[in-house]
């Protein structure tokens, strides 16, 4: 009887999934309600979790609850501790959810809601969840080793070194692109700039409170910090309305970029307890709160999708970033569908907390499905905006025209009507001077979220508060990532340079610490300035570069896991990780080829450099722009080289992996699995 109801239930879920997907994919005559996307996503995640994840757990990885996990065997009450699975789930989800699943889907909405929705749902179920789950499993069976360590041990020293270098380069591009998102959200916005500046003394106050006044009371101080941050949003509104104070917080993009670079260096040199740690606690709680709020808001409001299923920009002529829907939709949305960075988290803290091997199913597979759902929410928030408004906010002036009149004429000419009056009213409602050409995704996402949140409360006049709340929330954790990322980048660089000159590897040697911090800050700062100066908005070149790099890292993680599966004699199941690897390689290599060699100057780095060079030689560039044009030529060439380096590095790892696979599968070479030995668990049920 139970079996019958089980079959019936999953039958209903499958029919519902098919129905919702058909509506989302095929309905063209009238606007689609976002609830169909929610139903499609939830049903597909449920089916993937119930059947595919369980299949991988049982057949591919043969998870065994009798086997003691590292949390039990190496229990030290610090890093290794058997913990309740739902607590680890929450902890892991908080660690993997960053700005990526919010910004990527917003940018990819340029193609319409359909490509992004499909990639978020199926990319996660067949790729992202599988990557997180299998990387977690591999690390769990190896005492919580990192991806780099596993690459070194399972593939070889070249793989290990290349993985470290790849992560370092990706980090530099990541930091630059997310800093650019903040710059574009805050330029010319006294309200936003004041709120974000206020979070710094608030975080320092929290740090001092935790260290000297109420040590250990993290939840208490986070609550106080949250109230202060909310007050700072109201303070920002007062500042923006004051003719005396507003100019003090009205910054150009370049001023903000330089400020963020100086901040990045200073913050990474400050003690962790003073600024980074308290803000990290605060931003994590705010992030979880906003994700829940957005989920509830979308369910309550069920907004209609105003953007079409497919826009005219699937042909590659989009104003936000260049390139056709294939492959560019699949690299623009990385986090939310599949993100290489997750493999670093799945091989970090999480495997050290898992008390039963089968808990890896909800934690590895389930948490990624939830992150994908966050991406779906962001996509809905962006697609709930009028298409004209969406493109007016996200299109750079260099593409649509420098004046509001020219921009709205261009956008309306594409068939997405919008007027200057409409944009001015919207800007005034959210307390901004203008919302035109605010590239980067954050402002349009904030606008979409504010639209939903203000409707939940039923009070439209709070839309300005919600807009700045959303901007604050995005900037808060982006600054945390900048600070933490600069430190991690410094450690990695010290690790690499330490083999050349030993003192450089010591984290206590101040000249080494300052020198490497400066090198990392200048590296991402260079790309940030490049993005700010780029007439096409910077996102057009930097976000694809970041997407390619992140997906290439996912390919590395999946090839490490495939190697492990082959060594475990599970070669008949290697398709589980090999197929997503092949897809990622196809997507990223194609995107890299286009970005480097496309003859279209709007898309290809080299073509743009050549076009500018020709204009320079023909004397058509005004004298005042010659130096900037030379810099632009160099930057395009540099971006092409960086993109090429990513591909070469990952090719090295893949070739090295293929060599190992061939040796084992066809060469009759015995495989040595680097798993820790089987130990029977002694944990009692009440300890789990």
């Amino acid at each position, binding site marked *: 009887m139970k079996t019958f109801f089980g079959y019936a239930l999953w039958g209903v879920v499958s029919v519902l999934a098919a129905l919702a997907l058909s509506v989302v994919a095929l309905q063209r005559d009238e606007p689609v309600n976002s609830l169909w996307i929610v139903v499609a996503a939830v049903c597909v995640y449920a089916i993937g979790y119930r059947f595919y994840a369980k299949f991988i757990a049982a057949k591919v990885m043969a998870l065994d609850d009798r086997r003691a996990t590292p949390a039990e065997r190496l229990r*030290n009450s*610090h890093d290794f501790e058997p913990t*309740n699975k739902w607590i680890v789930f*929450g*902890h892991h989800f908080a660690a993997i959810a960053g700005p990526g699943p919010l910004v990527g889907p917003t940018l990819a909405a340029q193609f319409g809601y359909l490509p992004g929705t499909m990639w978020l749902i199926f990319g996660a179920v067949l790729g992202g969840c599988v990557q997180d789950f299998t990387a977690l499993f591999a690390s769990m069976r190896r005492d919580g080793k990192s991806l780099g360590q596993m690459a070194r041990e399972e593939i070889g020293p070249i793989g290990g070194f290349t993985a470290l270098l790849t992560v370092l380069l990706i980090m530099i591009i990541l930091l630059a692109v997310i800093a650019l998102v903040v710059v574009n959200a805050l330029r010319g916005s006294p309200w936003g700039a004041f709120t974000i500046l206020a979070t710094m003394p608030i975080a320092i106050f929290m740090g001092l409170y935790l260290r000297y006044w109420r040590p250990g009371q993290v939840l208490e101080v986070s609550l106080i910090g949250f109230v202060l941050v909310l007050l700072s949003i109201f303070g920002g509104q007062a500042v923006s309305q004051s003719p005396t104070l507003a100019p003090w917080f009205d910054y150009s993009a370049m001023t903000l970029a330089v400020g963020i670079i100086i901040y990045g260096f200073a913050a990474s040199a400050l003690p962790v*307890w003073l600024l980074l*740690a308290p803000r990290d606690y605060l931003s994590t709680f705010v992030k979880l709160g906003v994700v829940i709020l957005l989920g509830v808001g979308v369910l309550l409001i069920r907004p209609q999708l105003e953007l079409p299923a497919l826009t005219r920009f699937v042909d590659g002529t989009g104003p936000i970033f260049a390139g056709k829907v294939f492959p560019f939709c699949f690299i623009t949305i990385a986090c939310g569908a599949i993100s290489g960075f997750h493999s670093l988290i799945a091989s970090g803290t999480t495997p050290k907390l898992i008390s039963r091997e089968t808990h890896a199913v909800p934690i590895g597979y389930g948490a990624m499905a939830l992150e994908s759902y966050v991406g779906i929410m962001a996509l809905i928030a962006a697609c709930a905006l009028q298409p004209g408004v969406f493109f007016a906010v996200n299109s750079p002036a260099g593409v649509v025209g420098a004046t509001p009149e020219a921009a709205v004429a261009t956008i309306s000419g594409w068939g997405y009507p919008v007027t200057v009056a409409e944009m001015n009213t919207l800007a005034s409602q959210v307390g901004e001077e203008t919302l035109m050409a605010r590239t980067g995704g954050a402002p349009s996402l904030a606008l979409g979220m504010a639209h939903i949140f203000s409707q939940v409360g039923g009070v439209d006049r709070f839309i300005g508060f919600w807009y700045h709340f959303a901007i604050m929330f995005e900037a808060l954790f982006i600054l945390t*990532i900048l600070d933490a990322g600069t430190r991690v980048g410094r450690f990695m660089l010290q690790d690499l340079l330490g083999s050349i000159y030993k003192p450089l590897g010591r984290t206590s040697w101040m000249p080494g610490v300052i020198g490497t911090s400066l090198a990392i800050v200048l590296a991402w700062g260079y790309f940030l300035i490049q993005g700010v100066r780029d007439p096409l908005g910077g996102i057009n070149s930097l976000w694809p570069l970041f997407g390619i790099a992140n997906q290439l890292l996912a390919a590395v993680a999946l090839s490490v896991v495939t190697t492990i599966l082959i060594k475990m004699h599970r070669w008949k199941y290697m398709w589980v990780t090999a197929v997503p690897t092949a897809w990622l390689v196809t997507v990223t290599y194609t995107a890299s080829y286009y970005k480097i060699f496309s003859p279209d100057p709007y898309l290809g780095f080299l073509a743009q450099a050549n076009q500018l060079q020709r204009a320079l030689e023909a004397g058509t560039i005004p004298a005042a722009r010659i130096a900037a044009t030379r810099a632009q030529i160099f930057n395009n060439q540099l971006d092409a080289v960086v993109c090429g380096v990513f591909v070469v590095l990952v090719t090295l790892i893949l070739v090295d992996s293929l060599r190992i696979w061939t040796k084992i599968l066809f060469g009759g070479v015995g495989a040595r699995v680097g798993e820790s030995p089987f130990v029977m668990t002694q944990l009692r049920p009440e300890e789990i």
Partner: protein
Amino acid sequence: MRRLQELGRIIVGILREIADENAYARHLTAHGVTHSAAEWRRFSEHRMRAKYARAKCC
């Protein structure tokens, strides 16, 4: 009611885990020491050194 209590316990558990308060409680138990400002500082310095040596996700 019991289910709600269980849910509440899990939510508080997640928040305390993210806030490192659970880890601190484990630290106190494992070392057989009581809470003090100096002990918190010792714990948090060790914890943060490990935490911020790893990449944060995008």
